[in-house]
């Protein structure tokens, strides 16, 4: 394309009924294309690296926290189950009072322990 044809192409591309993709493709064939330098992507990634590292640290911390919580929760549930089994074996039944360590009979040992008499 010569200069006047290119100018005409630019003008006609702005018509309301023009097909924009057709015109931009023609311009691209004439050597009109844009890009950044080769090292552009690496430069961007280098600049976001601190943020990436921070996000990775946060994710790692959340993961450790989850594992710690899970371990504690499993141990707690196991302890409760063992407690219920031991109550059942000792009392022959499981009641809320026995689970809390409360009995119907008066326990002198507690009074002795508290008063020293």
């Amino acid at each position, binding site marked *: 394309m010569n200069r006047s044809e290119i100018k005409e192409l630019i*003008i006609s591309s702005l018509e*309301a009924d023009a097909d*924009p993709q057709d015109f931009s493709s023609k*311009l691209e064939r004439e*050597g009109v*294309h844009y890009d*950044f330098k080769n090292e*552009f992507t690496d430069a961007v990634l280098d600049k976001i690296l601190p943020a990436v590292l921070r996000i*990775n640290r946060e994710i790692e911390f959340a993961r450790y926290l989850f594992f710690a919580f899970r371990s504690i929760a499993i141990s707690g549930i196991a302890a409760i189950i063992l407690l219920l089994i031991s109550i059942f074996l000792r009392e022959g039944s499981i009641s809320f009072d026995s689970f809390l360590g409360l009995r119907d009979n008066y326990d002198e040992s507690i009074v002795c322990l508290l008063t020293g008499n």
Partner: protein
Amino acid sequence: MVTESYSDEKERELVKASIDGDKDAFGKIVRHYRKMVAATVKGMLGDSVFTEDIGQEVFIKLYYSLRDFRGDSKLSTYIQRIAVNMTLNELKKRKKVTSLFSQKGDDEIYEMDIPVTDAAERRDAEEIVNKALLALDPGFRIVVTMRLLQGYSTRETAEILEIPEGTVLSRLSRAQEQLRHILKKL
């Protein structure tokens, strides 16, 4: 010249991985959309050393705002909006600097744009397009860049610029008039 968008599924996958700190996933987004951003930034600001920095800032801003990306529009539209806003802000800054220097009465006005480099070595088409775009008013330049360099339809341009389609059409028509005068001189 429109950069093809990723499929919705692929796009969500890459965005999620980038948010989760996957550098390679974000690298794929940058590599895929860099030409699209280059066309917007260089079309609006001219081909200067500063456009590389602005292009980088567009993607850095994108990275930090990915959590806000809800997927209502395509990722390409979202990136274009960031690129357009940043280039318009840059143009405002340049205008301020230029007016500041001219108020001081300096003979030499500070010019941030490095004129199209080695024009003689460049192809005619690129030279004409660049010179014509830079001579346009910024308000018209943006719609012409979207249409001429990116190949966006009126509807797509309106969506990116968040203006009514009628406004896009009227700006294109007025830009066409301005370009007729500009191109006569080139």
